[in-house]
């Protein structure tokens, strides 16, 4: 029990990291898009858990709502809309797949070497920073809302216009002609 309270965060990090990685590899390698969609859901949910471990509680909830809810329903709806039986005949990978995988492994080796040779030092974090508004301790979502509606008001409005444009675009593209 003492081990759990001292090293619990690390254990959860490794658990969810492995879960996210394995299901991400399954997304890329499974033939049936339906199975791939559900492993994508597992990846999104374990990433939400990883967000919580880094004191991003509001983003974890948004992740579950937007990715686990909205985007996943969109994907499942489209998978059901298109005819799955036709997909069985096609070959899964493109012809140059081995070369692409090899180049990706090379990239992993290169960037991984860089990551392992840098040291950031201890994190500057005091969790109170994430939950305080003008020195007063509130909550993560309130602190984000405070910043979002004050310092980032213009990008926020642009994002809402962007979402409107995307919605109209999707309706126009999906329309029967």
């Amino acid at each position, binding site marked *: 029990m003492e081990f759990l309270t001292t090293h619990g*965060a*690390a254990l959860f990090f490794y658990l969810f990291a492995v879960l996210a990685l394995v299901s*991400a590899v399954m*997304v*890329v390698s499974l033939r049936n*898009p339906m199975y*791939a969609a559900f492993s*994508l859901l597992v*990846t*999104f949910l374990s*990433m939400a858990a*990883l*967000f919580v*471990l*880094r004191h*991003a509680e509001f*983003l974890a909830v*948004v*992740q579950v709502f*937007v*990715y686990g809810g*909205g*985007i996943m329903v*969109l*994907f499942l709806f*489209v*998978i059901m*809309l*298109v*005819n799955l039986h*036709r997909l069985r005949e*096609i070959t*899964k*990978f*493109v012809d140059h797949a081995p070369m*692409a*995988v090899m180049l*990706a492994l090379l990239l*992993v080796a290169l*960037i*991984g070497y860089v*990551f392992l040779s840098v*040291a*950031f030092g201890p*994190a*500057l*974090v*005091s969790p109170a920073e994430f939950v305080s508004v003008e020195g007063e301790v509130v909550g993560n979502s309130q*602190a*984000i809302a405070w910043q*979002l509606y004050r310092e980032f008001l213009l990008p926020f409005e642009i*994002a809402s216009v*962007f*979402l409107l444009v*995307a*919605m109209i*675009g*999707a309706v126009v*593209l*999906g329309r029967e002609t």
Partner: protein
Amino acid sequence: MLEITTVHYLVLSFLLFTTGLVGILIRRNMIIVLMSIELVLNSVNLNFIAFSYQLSDLTGQIFAVFTIAVAAGEAAVGLGILVALYRLRHTTELDQAAELKG
């Protein structure tokens, strides 16, 4: 080993990014390619949040909110294109969409 640092998050986010990148490069099925793009965008969010924690600055989390908004719009438009392609060619294979004028 048991202390989780920013580097742990960077390595995990980079591995997820590479997995998504490989998916974009090697798969023929457009649905899976769109899913891989979501994976890439989500791994970037992980990076933002790790650095937001490292620097004790909320701006990283704000930026991740915008990334999620862009990912949602991208999924909607991408799947709209997929449905349009399926209407035209009755397939979701990307090789079938090689012509500019169909």
